[in-house]
């Protein structure tokens, strides 16, 4: 407003044209962004709490999967972004975080969770809102018809297939099995799986003891377990509970009397406790880095992970993050974008081999059909390097016959 004459030569037409150009310039980035909007994937996982170590591995591997896709130019030309949230291993918190991811961050899909209760909470929220969810935590419940959602895909192994594979390698006709079980959903589901396999294989149960979740002291259980005189001591718990229980069982000499078997032999717990206590323990796993000796995709995954994380090897639960996110992104690529119905169709039709050999989702319950590894913890002297923790006893190939049938789960035949 410094001159009263203003801009004398500007006609009305010029002004209008100027406005139009100005508006267009301001709007440009919006239009451009709408075309190449990033694909956002929510990733709730328990960064705090007893499973934090496993959760951090999941995040690292999921980030790697996203990075690899972005390096190739993204999905259908769109960049992918991973939004990691701490669910604090609490179902209520997970539900809130998932609502936030869907309502505020407008994510196109959710991957994550590391507990039965948490994944069922996320499943409930995504099911009501029609958002794709790839669950990467073990559960049998999520396969059943009551909790089924056509938007949910279960990438993790489930207790039924894990225990069947482990039992097949360890239980013989007449084997006496004693069970030490964590008294919550995970322990109960694992126990149910083992008992089913036990009946099929002709082994016998000599007793089962339930222990509270998060127990630190197992010494009172050990004399009782010894007196059962089992051939196999089967310890069904997760995380730090597994490490504490195995350590104390070995202190009581249970490993000299019986073979210690666990449903899932955890990489991080073996690292935390050391080779001596875990020596000879047998358990299942979804992934172990030495698969690279036979499977090319495992080698590629290991190499990429090592390059991104200063030479560290990927872990079992970490691999879930990688396979889950990779499968989802592959399906989005096939579907040409994040359109929910197209991605579901693509996931149902997908056969993918990203880290551990071929996998696919069963049509009726969306369970990932995949191989189960049976591992045995190595003696310290036999370890070739720091990460060489286990030997692979068997690789049970993925097959729908290893799952509970669709009709058993309650789906129409």
């Amino acid at each position, binding site marked *: 407003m410094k001159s009263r004459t203003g801009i004398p030569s500007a006609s009305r037409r010029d002004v209008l044209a100027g406005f139009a150009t100005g508006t267009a310039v301001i709007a440009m980035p919006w239009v451009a962004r709408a075309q190449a909007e990033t694909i956002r994937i929510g990733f709730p996982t328990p*960064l*705090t709490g007893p499973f*934090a170590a496993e959760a951090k591995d999941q995040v690292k591997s999921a980030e790697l999967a996203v990075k690899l896709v972005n390096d190739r130019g993204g999905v259908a030309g769109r960049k992918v972004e991973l939004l990691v*949230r*701490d669910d*604090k291993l*609490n*179902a*209520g918190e997970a*539900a*809130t*975080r998932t*609502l*936030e991811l869907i*309502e*505020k961050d407008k994510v196109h899909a959710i991957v994550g969770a590391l507990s*039965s*209760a948490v994944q*069922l*909470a996320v*499943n*409930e*929220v995504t*099911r*009501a*809102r029609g958002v794709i969810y790839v669950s990467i935590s073990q559960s049998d*419940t999520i396969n059943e018809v*009551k*909790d089924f959602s056509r938007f949910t895909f279960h990438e993790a192994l489930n207790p039924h297939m894990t225990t069947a594979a482990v039992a097949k390698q360890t239980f013989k006709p007449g084997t006496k099995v004693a069970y030490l079980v964590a008294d*919550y*959903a995970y322990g109960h589901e694992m126990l149910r799986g083992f008992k089913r396999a036990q009946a099929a294989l002709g082994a016998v149960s000599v007793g089962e003891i339930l222990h509270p979740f998060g127990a630190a002291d197992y010494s009172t259980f050990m004399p009782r377990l010894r007196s059962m005189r089992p051939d196999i001591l089967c310890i069904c718990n997760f995380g730090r509970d597994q490490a504490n229980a195995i350590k104390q069982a070995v202190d009581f000499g249970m490993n000299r009397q019986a073979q210690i078997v666990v449903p899932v032999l955890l990489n991080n717990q073996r690292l935390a406790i050391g080779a001596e206590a875990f020596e000879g323990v047998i358990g299942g796993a979804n992934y172990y880095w030495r698969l690279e000796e036979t499977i090319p995709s495992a080698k590629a995954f290991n190499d990429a992970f090592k390059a991104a994380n200063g030479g560290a090897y990927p872990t079992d639960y970490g691999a879930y993050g990688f396979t889950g996110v990779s499968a989802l992104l592959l399906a989005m690529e096939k579907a040409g974008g994040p359109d929910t119905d197209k991605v579901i169709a693509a996931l149902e039709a997908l056969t993918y081999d990203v880290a551990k050999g071929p996998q696919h989702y069963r049509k009726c319950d969306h369970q990932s059909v995949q191989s189960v590894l049976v591992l045995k913890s190595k003696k310290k002297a036999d370890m070739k390097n720091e990460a060489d923790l286990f030997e692979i006893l068997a690789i049970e190939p993925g097959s729908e016959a290893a799952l509970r049938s669709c009709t058993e789960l309650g789906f129409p035949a």
Partner: protein
Amino acid sequence: MTASTSSVAAVATRPTNRRGWRARLILWRVPLSILALCLLPWVLPSMALATNVLIYGLLAVGYNLLFGYTGLLSFGHAAFFGAGAYVTGIAIAQFGASWYAALALGVVAGGLLAFVIGILSIRTRGIYFSMVTLALSQLVYYTALQAASWTGGENGLRGFTVGQLDLFGWTVDFLDPVTKYYVLMVFAAAALWFVSRILNSPFGAVIEAIRENETRARACGYHVERSKLIAFTLSGLICALAGTLLALHLAIVPLDILHYQTSGMIVMMTLLGGAGSFFGPFVGALAFLLMEDVVSLWTSHWQIVVGTVFILFVLFLPKGIWGTALAWEARR
């Protein structure tokens, strides 16, 4: 100590202009609180967080009725919160009840549970009262854990998502976060009015008298035990209402809702905001959940930050955020 922030009688001794200001604030505390709740979703980072602040704020208001106004430190209020949530969820999932019937059932069930636990616990006082309420609420926790066919046990209660609400022939989309917030807010607002009404009644004066000096209240002829029991039950009712709202909001009931950590969190929120002040618990819930939400995005060691802030408040600002602000305003 906190009577000055709440009772009209204490305000009467203040200078005229301040008295006018404070009296007006107390007179208008319910509309002002509701106004604040109306604005809440638009200043917070997400609607889900705002809804949680609403629900946990209401929970802390219910708890404050017992802790801040009656002076009883209960460590078992998770039981009423959980009972409200579970009964609402079970009524919808297992019996196909309509949402308002389920809500009413949840509140009544929580109130009944509070009445029973109240009868058993108010005979004791001080630390013993806290321990008895804690023990009884743990009983409720283990009952819910064991009765898995009803409650879903460890996996939590699921399968009762309310997608649409029919409000007397008028259907609203309950999955829409804004609609959901304002529908739930109507119930919270009604509860706030109810609590304010209780506090303004002669009964409100009696429970504050019990807090200030139990022996004197007894000497004045008040039935202390009965008043405590009524306060305990009313507090349980409000907490149960918060529970039913949480069930409708999240569409799941996690088992952790009954855990003693939830009881601890209620105490923390109330202390952080200001025990014995009307709006303080909401401020406490807001501060606690906002810290948790924002800090946990930034570091996984968020508990250290929240814990430190809490310790600093207990040490230096025992009246909490809102209580201190009110006291500061009064001193000016």
